[in-house]
């Protein structure tokens, strides 16, 4: 049985993520194997942060004896609130893991109130 798999259609993979935060930043790490920097598109529109990743690895043709991988592109959307600094977002892609760092606005950080 020859199987030919194409990347057409609009099926997408929602990349699994780990999200952690502290007072000054939120770090989101998403697993997107097969995506290179060139295939990555990250946008912030209002309260929505969208991440689109196009896979650049080719889909081999032949007889699939095992098929578990999903050959679709990636799409993920997050809602971010006012406390996230829109200008302070950085992204890094290493070994198929996208790391997003979102800075929290200075004004949104907790403030210590000294007691006299």
């Amino acid at each position, binding site marked *: 049985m020859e199987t030919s798999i194409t990347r057409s259609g609009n*099926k997408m993979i*929602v990349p*699994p*993520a*780990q*999200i*952690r*935060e*502290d*007072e000054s930043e*939120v*770090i*989101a*790490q998403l*697993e*997107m*194997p*097969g*995506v*290179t920097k060139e295939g990555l598109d990250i946008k912030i529109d209002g309260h929505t*942060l969208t991440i689109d990743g196009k896979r*650049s*690895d080719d889909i*081999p*043709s*032949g*007889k*699939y*004896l*095992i*098929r*578990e*991988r*999903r050959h*679709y592109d990636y799409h993920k*959307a*997050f*809602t*971010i*609130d006012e*406390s*996230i600094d829109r200008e302070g977002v950085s992204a890094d892609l290493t*070994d*198929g*893991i996208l790391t997003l760092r*979102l800075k*929290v606005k200075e004004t*949104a950080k907790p403030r210590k109130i000294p007691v006299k």
Partner: protein
Amino acid sequence: MPDLILRRYIMDHANLVTRKRQAPTTLDLWDAFDDLRREFERTFGDLEFPSVSGLLDWPAGPDIDLVEGDDEILVLADLPGVRKGDLELSIQGNLLTIKGEKKREEPTQSHKVVRTETWVGSFSRTINLPDSVNPEKVEAELRDGVLRIRIAKREEAKRRAVQISVK
């Protein structure tokens, strides 16, 4: 309206229907079932069940494709976050073993983990290659989180078109 899972909310669009939670750390049993169901639908919704792994094996191992081409056998594995040094490949006869460890940068004391959908830990997977492989000719490459192993087929196993002249 979306409710807040996170203190400052970064929120999943897929999770707009989650019920109000007291705090991200408290685990409501029904919420957990809901999450599990959603996770299943999301993961398996567009895919037939893999024939080689049991239901409960998921997701503590990499997803693999084994493709038989005309001249070679190709094994592809999604290994995001795995470094070359943490990967060990071996081939014995027609058994290929992919062993390794998937690590994650541990959050520091001040960081609070608000959501984890990914797995870390060691994994090992042995697959049966077709008998036509030549285990002497193997090439492996790890790039962008995808492992690609090419194993040549034995000469006599290669598909060849032979012209037969008719007299």
